[in-house]
């Protein structure tokens, strides 16, 4: 895997992976991750290290195991080979507790209103009926642009609105590591831009580590510090593209265009 080797050269944190000191571990460390479903190999020897506070996008064709990678990191897949750790703690030993996930589908509770759905994401030690928690949820409703819909049920929302509820639920969790699985795919262009900038704001304010899976090369380049390109079936790391543009970024930045070209080339399009 020459490409990942290249990434580790650039990334001093990964060099400390083998060290005994857990504090030196990257926020998110994946080494030699292989995941099989029966005879199908979904991920093959994937290496990935994400530093604390870093924003990484993962792109790749359908069926390359992007979603599987996120499922492993959230602790939803118990059985895999290799290592997956959050802050040095294996995801199977509670490391996944620090991970929040926004699923590809909204996955909302049909009987609960928007406020209650977002409150599901509140950390376990927060009482959802507490006024401060309520304010926090209302703030998130505003952040994702759903003012006035706090009392609506998912059945009354459009697909894009439901996706934003799901996004707000992920933000309510205030995780150290936030994973997002194509969270903007159902949004119209304008709302998508808005929500991308919201996500960047939240990322900057909270200093969270973010890994975002997307199909959208433009989105990946605009948002991420680094873009991991997965390829093929089974999924392997094809290459890692550094996005060298300064923040805050302009969508038309030359450096973004260069990064997009590089990603597109790596995807073999």
């Amino acid at each position, binding site marked *: 895997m020459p490409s990942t080797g290249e990434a580790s050269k650039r990334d001093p944190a990964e060099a400390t992976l083998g060290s005994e000191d857990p504090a030196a571990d990257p926020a998110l460390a994946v080494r030699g991750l292989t995941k099989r479903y029966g005879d199908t190999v979904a991920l093959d020897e994937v290496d990935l290290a994400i530093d604390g506070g870093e924003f990484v996008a993962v792109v790749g064709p359908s069926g390359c195991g992007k979603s599987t990678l996120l499922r492993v990191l959230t602790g*939803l897949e118990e059985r895999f080979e290799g290592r997956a750790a959050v802050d040095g703690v294996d995801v199977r030993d509670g490391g996944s507790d620090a991970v*929040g*996930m926004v*699923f590809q589908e909204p996955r909302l*509770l049909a009987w609960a209103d928007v406020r209650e759905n977002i409150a599901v994401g509140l950390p376990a030690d927060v009482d959802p009926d507490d006024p401060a928690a309520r304010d926090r949820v209302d703030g998130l409703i505003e952040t994702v642009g759903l003012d006035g819909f706090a009392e609506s049920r998912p059945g009354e929302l459009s697909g894009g609105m439901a996706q934003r509820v799901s996004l707000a639920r992920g933000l309510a969790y205030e995780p150290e590591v936030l994973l997002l699985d194509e969270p903007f795919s159902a949004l119209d262009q304008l709302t998508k831009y808005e929500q991308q900038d919201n996500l960047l704001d939240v990322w900057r304010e909270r200093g969270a580590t973010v890994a975002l899976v997307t199909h959208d090369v433009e989105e990946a380049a605009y948002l991420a510090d680094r873009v991991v390109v997965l390829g093929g079936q089974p999924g392997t790391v094809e290459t890692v593209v550094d996005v060298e543009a300064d923040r805050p970024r302009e969508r038309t930045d030359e450096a973004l265009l260069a990064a997009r070209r590089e990603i597109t080339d790596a995807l073999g399009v």
Partner: protein
Amino acid sequence: MATTRETETGDVGSALAGALPDADRFRWLLGLVVPAALVVVWHLLVATGVFAAHQLPQPLRVVETLYGMAATGELWGHIAITLQRVFFGTLLGVSVGIVLGTVTGLYGLAEDLLDPLLQSLKNIPSLAWVPLFLLWFGIGEGAKVLLIAVGAFFPVYLNLSTGIGNVSEDLIEVAEVYDLGRFESLRRVVFPAAVPSLLVGIRGGVGLAWMFVVAAELIAASQGIGFLMSDGRVLARPDIIVGSILLFAFFGNLSDLAVKEVEKRAVDW
């Protein structure tokens, strides 16, 4: 966005209602046409002597009989005791159904142990239990309430058990990722998701409770609508028999409507 859409559809709806003023509001009356015609045919058949009056009374005669029994107060005692039996029997059957349905829905071991037995018991016809229950519990109220409870139990048990077992895996993963914990994920995700199944079960249970009360009262009772029926046979009074059937029809429908109304309010999503 959605607000405008809602007002638009609202406008279209009211415009339609204006164009077709009463068509939809009185539509339910159509359901009365056939029964009314049948009553007329019934009256004609008896009046013209096709059916002998000692086998099938005239409709009006049935009403007179019921009215007469109501006036003397005799009817109310029968109705009250039947309603009481159905109520307590349903209460008991539904309660036990909820407990066993929950346990088998949640725990695979409990399901493996109990479900095969309960699945085969449910196929025993209601009348088959009567002699045994009489032997065990005598001809008192206990035997009847228990027999009705057996009837009400099975639909609740079967529906709730599968309802809990079939809660969407997607939602359970959400509860897992957001670390809701066992208790909270049951309270906020699993149980609310199973409420529709529970109500379907209760509706079926109430229906069977009425079937079982007839079985109990026909065979061993000195009061109740079922007793009235068998008394009518002994006295060769078809008007009493048909009147009792109508009473069962009335109260059966009433209780079904009541549960349906609860269902509509509880499952409004």
